[in-house]
């Protein structure tokens, strides 16, 4: 069992799940997952492919809703609010919970329009205000210096690493509290990967970051806490240091020592 005592006493539990089961049609993908994810920390989800870590991540901004035939049991609370309550507004939720995808997916629009997309759909029309948000977001994602002179050029002209940082800027522009990252560096070269990792390090104090990764070194480098999933179950959740030095479970040990997966 996971004990909440693994966090320091003053930690806010921003995301809380209670006995979450998740189904794709008749197939159960997640089994009875209960965990607390601390605020303003980096939490990494690791595990072999198909273990359910991405599915679990996509529960937090209800992206699984877009797949037909999915069903969730249990409770998912963000800041104490049950996000799967009927009355909860998905649009509102996704404003608070940003997401960065595995495959960088900038829109085939200009760099400026990409970052301004979120604020615009949320009703900001003032040009100066938009320009301010775009600049701030690009600065936060460490892309500003590289693109400030070509904001009007098509985003698809950027390199893979730049595109991914643009996607991060785009997510930040909406002003989220939580940032979900689904293997954000898995399609990038090593140098770009390090830049993304540095960026996550810079963002950790202001955002609650949950990152799915299949790269254990990455999890060890950037996260404060690590959760290990196997076959749809949460096997172990602990401080990253402990997971990688003294795992409690045999399965965790086998995985991080490379015996399977």
């Amino acid at each position, binding site marked *: 069992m996971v004990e909440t005592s693994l966090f320091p006493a003053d930690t806010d539990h921003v995301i809380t799940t209670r006995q979450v089961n998740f189904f794709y049609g008749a197939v159960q993908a997640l089994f009875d997952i209960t965990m607390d994810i601390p605020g303003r920390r980096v939490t990494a989800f690791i595990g072999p492919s198909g273990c359910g870590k991405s599915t679990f991540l996509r529960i937090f*901004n209800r*992206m699984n809703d*877009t797949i*037909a*035939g999915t069903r969730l049991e249990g409770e998912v609370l963000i800041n104490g609010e049950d996000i799967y309550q009927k009355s909860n507004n998905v*649009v*509102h*939720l*996704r*404003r608070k919970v*940003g*997401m960065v*995808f595995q*495959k960088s*997916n*900038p*829109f*085939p629009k200009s760099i400026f329009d990409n970052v301004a*997309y*979120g604020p615009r*759909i*949320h009703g900001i029309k003032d040009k100066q205000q938009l320009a301010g948000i775009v600049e701030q977001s690009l600065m936060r994602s460490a892309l500003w210096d590289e693109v400030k002179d070509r904001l009007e050029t098509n985003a*698809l002209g950027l390199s893979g690493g730049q595109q991914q940082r643009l*996607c991060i800027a*785009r*997510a930040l522009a*909406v002003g989220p509290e939580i940032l979900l990252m689904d293997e954000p560096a898995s399609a990038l070269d090593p140098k770009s990967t390090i830049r993304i990792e540095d960026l996550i390090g810079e963002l950790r104090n202001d955002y609650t970051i949950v990152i799915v990764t299949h790269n254990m070194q990455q999890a060890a480098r950037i996260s404060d806490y690590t959760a290990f999933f196997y076959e749809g179950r949460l096997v172990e959740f602990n401080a990253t240091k402990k997971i990688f030095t003294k795992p409690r479970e045999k399965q965790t040990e086998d995985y991080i020592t490379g015996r399977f997966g």
Partner: protein
Amino acid sequence: MSTGKEQVIYWLIRMVMYAIVMVIGYIIFDIVWHGLPALSWDFISQYPRKGGAEGGILPAIVGTLSLLVGTIAVSLPLGICSAIYLSEYAEQSRFTAMIRLAIITLAGVPSIVYGLFGLGFFVLLLNFGTSILAGCLTLACMILPTIIVSSEEALRAVPSGYRDASLALGATKWETIRTNVLPYSLSGIITGSILGIGRAAGETAPILLTVAAFYLPRLPNSIFDQVMALPYHLYILATQHPEADKVLPLQYATALVLLLLVLGLSLGAIFIRIHFRKKYRW
């Protein structure tokens, strides 16, 4: 390496292919060759005289164009919305399966049956009379499946990552479709629609019973008027005219104008496809 015998077979297949190409080429050549001498500005811009034996084909051109505009106005919104439903909203359900079956069925209905339906439903039951309105609605029914199928294909070609990213930023489903799916598929939708409209421009059977006038040397005033139309005019000149031989140059010129209109639409569609393919690459 192929043997000599295989080479012979290859050449036979090649000959079949190029025989088809040559026949197509010859048809177009024949129409252009005989039609061009009779084609003039007067022919396009004047009213017919003496039952079509002299003068131009202005009312037929205007009639066909107004039919096309009306047909597009009805079928395009309906077709695009149907395609959006099928590509963006539809789940695997009986309802969706029924819609797909219906579209396949509509695509196979013979054009003369559309004509019969248009006559029974639009002309008689809804009492639109033999009119532009009835003709446009009938043609719109006919090209609806073409527009739906090509639009759906264009919408599905948009990578799902754009939809996910937009939704994850808090856009609603409709905002996502409007800002991040439709704009990128527009060229495909337009291309498919133009091809559909090209088909409508050349069809005679559906308008035969719903709108076309035998000889009406004036322009329409309202959507409840009858009009002349290019394909029907050609049919009349070629088969029903008392002095069919005398008006032969006019027949060829009419055929040429119709052919140019339809081929122009097709070429336009191909041009748009090439132009936009450069703009959005993913």
